[in-house]
């Protein structure tokens, strides 16, 4: 098994983590007016949501993980939403119980960023482990809040690593539900307001899901990489449209806002995302 390689956008004007944050922020235009949140290992989503509130989604409300701030306005992006400095400049403190309230109510929680140790081509994620349950080859960190994918209106999936082990045909365990393996769409029995994953972000590309069968589909490939790079590093089939655009690089305004208001200490410039 080769060591993971660092994803690089083919230019030093911005890092791949910055590109991912900027691209995530753009797609949050869809969520303007909604309430959302980020959880563990959310360095890039934290920056993305904060950027979106400045650009395309001024009416978006978000809670910043375990630091418990609503709409924080930190200028020094921490690595973790668990870091108390992520609370800086918040409008309110949200007790953990309130997050559970929103999750249980479902419709009040618009979106969240979820990850996992595996994702499959129907958007199901696994945080539990790999292998038979009584003899796991790899024990995952646990289901934590990704369960809310069953309840919130929709979710975004993101991975700091893109590989054949991360993107799989079928996850070993479902911690957060995506779509039914039979191609019929959203799993039955969940809240009707909860429509499943919208987009998947990795260090190589952005994916969405086909309208009919809800299978992974390539949406754009990041600068520096090709459709073949994506397919080669994926362990599942991905629908590839005739035209696959390159993910648009950050505009000057996006980069200016990101670097002067959100991430002055360059956390994302130094943040390594990988593939392979």
């Amino acid at each position, binding site marked *: 098994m080769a060591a993971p390689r660092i994803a690089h956008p083919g230019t030093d004007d911005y890092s791949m983590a910055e590109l991912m944050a900027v691209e995530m922020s753009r797609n949050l235009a869809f969520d303007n*007016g909604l*309430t959302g949140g980020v959880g563990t290992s959310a360095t890039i989503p934290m920056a993305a949501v904060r950027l979106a509130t*400045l*650009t*395309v989604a*001024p*009416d978006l*409300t978000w809670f910043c993980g375990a630091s418990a*701030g*609503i*709409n924080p*306005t930190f200028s020094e992006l921490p690595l973790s939403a668990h870091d108390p400095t992520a*609370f800086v*400049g*918040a*409008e*309110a*403190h*949200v007790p953990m*119980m*309130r997050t*559970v*309230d*929103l*999750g*249980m*109510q*479902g419709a*009040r929680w618009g979106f969240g960023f979820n990850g996992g140790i595996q994702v499959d081509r129907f958007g199901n994620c696994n945080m539990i482990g790999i292998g038979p349950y009584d003899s796991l080859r790899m024990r995952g960190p646990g289901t934590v809040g990704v369960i809310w994918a069953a309840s919130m209106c929709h979710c975004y999936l993101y991975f700091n690593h893109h590989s054949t082990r991360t993107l799989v045909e079928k996850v070993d365990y479902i911690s957060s539900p995506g779509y039914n393996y039979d191609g019929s769409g959203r799993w039955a029995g969940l809240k009707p307001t909860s429509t499943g994953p919208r987009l998947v972000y990795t260090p190589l590309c952005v994916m969405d899901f086909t309208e009919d069968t809800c299978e992974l589909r390539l949406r754009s490939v990041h600068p520096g990489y090709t459709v073949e790079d994506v397919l080669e590093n994926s362990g599942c089939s991905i629908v590839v449209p005739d035209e696959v655009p390159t993910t648009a690089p950050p*505009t*000057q*305004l996006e980069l200016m806002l990101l670097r002067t208001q959100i991430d002055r200490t360059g956390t994302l410039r130094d943040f390594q995302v990988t593939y392979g």
Partner: protein
Amino acid sequence: MTDQTFTLPQRRSKEISLEEAGALIAQRKRLAFGNEPMALVRAALRAGAEGLTVIPPVTTSLSTDLLIAAGAVESLYVCYIGFETLGMAPAFRRAAESRTIEVVEADEITVILGTRTAAGGMPFAPVANIYEATDLPRLNPDNLRRVVDPFTGTETYAIPALRSEICLIHAQEADIYGNAICLGSNNQEADKALASDFVIVQADRIVSTDRIREQPYRTSLPSNLVDAVVHAPFGNHPLVSGRHYQMDVPHVRTYLSMVKEGRAQEYLDTYVYGPKDEWAYLELIGMHDLLTLQRGV
């Protein structure tokens, strides 16, 4: 988004007029109070609210009694309604004794835990070992049922989730996006808001979001729990507004006497329907009395 002008989009204000708020309330029937927001109560009455089911906070006084005096209440969750050492709630007492309102015989559990249960999206809450020997299960059979704990097999009581169509809350300070600070309260507001379809906050003062950010731990209602904000200076008169003004005790005593003497309509005509809006109400009370109430808070 234009790179050249550096103009970022503005966040949408949720501020509406008190009259708009009144109209929104009058369109709904199942009303919860987070505390006792008097300006919204007067606005609702001016807008013709009627046939209401009211879920007050654990203790309520004039906000609920005035709605009853005006004949706007059909059904009421009774936990405590009264004016403590100033006396009983006269309109409530008369309406309940003459059976012109329906009473749900509630208590702190029904209201607080029922609201919490609705706020948390749960269908009901199991409750153990409280109601035996009291008359509440007999008087309140629709709200106290039995359920078996699936883990132990023990039978317990269950209370239902208590949702509302609209929730009204007084805040001392709020920004135009809905972040609100309720001072001098015991935090019933957030659960009441979460358990409601539509939330209106009236605020003594509209403040900047920067000021909200100075004390994020004091934000009682984050903006995402609030649908509309109304600027209502002295909006809780004649009741107390923590750190802002005292209860206007002489005014409240006047209310109590008038209703007891059968002059509720006269009070309503003078203080609710007479003034064309809330500014006229405040003129009626007068600047001298209002500003004097700010002493000693």
